[in-house]
């Protein structure tokens, strides 16, 4: 087994990290199975019995709401391994396996086995694997680690990104609908994740977009081509989280949505009532986050993105609009429309990012190499609190990602898997 630590240096990483199936298997065991992973939003399972199917790495799970809160259960019968739940979503009070009729309650306990006279196994040991679950602002995270650190410790500064997204709602809550768009690309999950916290590529990969649109707001700044002019920044937030921040390019409320500040007076009123005039204006000016939360969540401004690794060279990005609870339909419509520009297989932006990721993967598979991640090292600005900020085009986020990746992948298993 490769020594992973030797593949990750301060300013370069070795390409097999993206193409080696053994490393992929190790990532699923070390990163996904032992750490906090995003699995859903509370608004997706609003009532008792509601469930959605998700994955933690490769492991299929059921995310379900019970009277005691949200449970995350391994979606696999403990008898002979059948997938318990095939439907993507629904409402169930019990999960009956369609193979031999074993029934599990929403806490994962085995509560019924047909023809019991012949059964020999002790039911209490046959419960479904159950993850530890914590929520923040309705964002549900789960982990199979036996002694997980508190979620807030994992989130660190990324917590502010969840606040930033939720505070755009007068009720302080986003909500996610039923329909997801799923974008499949033939590349490693880390490749598009790094792209999402990368500002350097925007002028080039999105050249066709720059040429086609009427540039305004943040695009006017970051597509200007002048390094001194570009004011947006990148940040490494610690714990593998990273973001691009466009707030400084927005000079008035709602410019991030591409509309005049007074376009939605009902929304402005509701926000003022909720937060007071001064704070409401600042929230509406700064706009939503563009933040990657390690390992599988990306807050893509008006959309939420979940990263689903399929194998070492295949990934699916799911996305849905981040709708605002308590906001008028008109602004949620606009949020929906804005999201369509950025995310999805036919989007103006990500459709091209995924092609780059696919080309990278193909090239590296045949031509392994050290990859340079030194950009901006000489000018990045570490803060006292551990966050590192730099110019929009610098590779600070990548270095932060790999630093955390390395510590997770090479640490002694202090958190054994449950």
């Amino acid at each position, binding site marked *: 087994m490769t020594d992973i630590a030797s593949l990750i240096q301060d300013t370069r990483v070795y390409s097999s990290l993206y193409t080696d199936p053994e490393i992929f298997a190790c990532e699923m065991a070390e990163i996904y199975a032992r750490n906090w992973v995003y699995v859903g939003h509370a608004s997706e399972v609003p009532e008792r019995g509601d469930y959605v199917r998700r994955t933690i790495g490769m492991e299929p799970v059921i995310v379900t709401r019970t009277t005691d809160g949200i449970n995350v259960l391994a979606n696999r019968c403990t008898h002979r391994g059948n997938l318990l739940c095939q439907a993507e979503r629904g409402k169930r009070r019990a999960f009956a396996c369609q193979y031999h009729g074993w029934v599990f309650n929403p806490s994962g306990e085995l509560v019924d086995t047909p023809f019991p006279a012949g059964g020999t196994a002790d039911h209490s040991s046959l419960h479904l694997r159950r993850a530890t679950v914590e929520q923040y602002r309705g964002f549900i995270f789960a982990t199979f680690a036996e002694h997980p650190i508190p979620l807030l410790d994992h989130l660190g500064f990324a917590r502010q990104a969840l606040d930033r997204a939720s505070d755009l709602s007068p009720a302080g809550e986003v909500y996610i609908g039923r329909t997801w768009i799923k974008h*499949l690309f033939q590349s490693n999950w880390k490749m598009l994740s790094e792209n999402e916290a990368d500002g350097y590529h925007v002028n080039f990969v999105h050249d066709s977009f720059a040429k086609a649109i009427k540039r305004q707001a943040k695009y006017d700044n970051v597509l200007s081509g002048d390094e001194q002019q570009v004011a947006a920044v990148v940040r490494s937030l610690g714990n593998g989280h990273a973001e691009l921040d466009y707030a400084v390019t927005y000079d008035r409320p709602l410019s991030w949505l591409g509309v005049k500040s007074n376009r939605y007076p009902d929304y402005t009123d509701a926000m003022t009532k909720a937060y007071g005039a001064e704070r409401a204006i600042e929230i509406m000016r700064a706009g939503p986050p563009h933040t990657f939360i390690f390992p599988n969540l990306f807050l893509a401004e008006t959309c939420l993105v979940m990263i689903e690794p399929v194998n070492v060279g295949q990934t*699916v990005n799911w996305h849905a*609009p981040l709708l605002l609870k308590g906001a008028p339909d008109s602004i949620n419509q606009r949020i929906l429309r804005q999201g369509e520009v950025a995310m999805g297989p036919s989007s103006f932006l990500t*459709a*091209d990012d995924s092609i780059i990721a696919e080309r990278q993967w193909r090239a590296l598979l045949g031509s392994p190499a050290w990859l340079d991640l030194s950009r901006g090292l000489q000018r990045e600005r570490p803060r006292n609190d551990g966050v590192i900020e730099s110019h929009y085009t610098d590779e600070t986020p990548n270095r932060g990602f790999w630093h955390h990746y390395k510590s997770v992948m090479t640490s002694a298993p202090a958190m054994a898997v449950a």
Partner: protein
Amino acid sequence: MTDTPISETEFRALQEFVFTEAKYADESRYDEWEALLTDDMQYRVPAGDGTDLSPFAPSIINDNRSRLATRLRQLRTGTRLSQAPPSVMRRLIANLTATRAGAIEYEMQGNFVVYEYQTQSTNQLQVWPGQATWRIRVTADGLRLCAKTVLLVHRSGPLPSLSFLI
């Protein structure tokens, strides 16, 4: 008026229009394809399994005429990586039916499959089957497309980049 059956002549004209639209799309002839559109054309590729009736349900493509114009401008730059070089495509259209939809419009519906050779990265053949609905209007300049809705068979599952005209 809407009770009058579609004549053979009308059907042939509609079919020819649909086949022409398909040829321009297959060959990435953006200018000629755009010339077939009305000023109020709506181009939609819904997502999901069809049970989500929310007005906020996301779509794969949901273009009004203005957004579609931007999409075509982006394709014409030649630097839209997901269509640079353009996919090589041929589509088959079958099971066509036509009905009247108002005094000067028709609705054609049919099944299709696009065979797309992805030249941009994976160099693999992708298959895109589905059902399409074309809303076609009689104008002074001939038949024009005022709406196209495409229901992909696999629209609730993971899809590769879809930057070509489906």
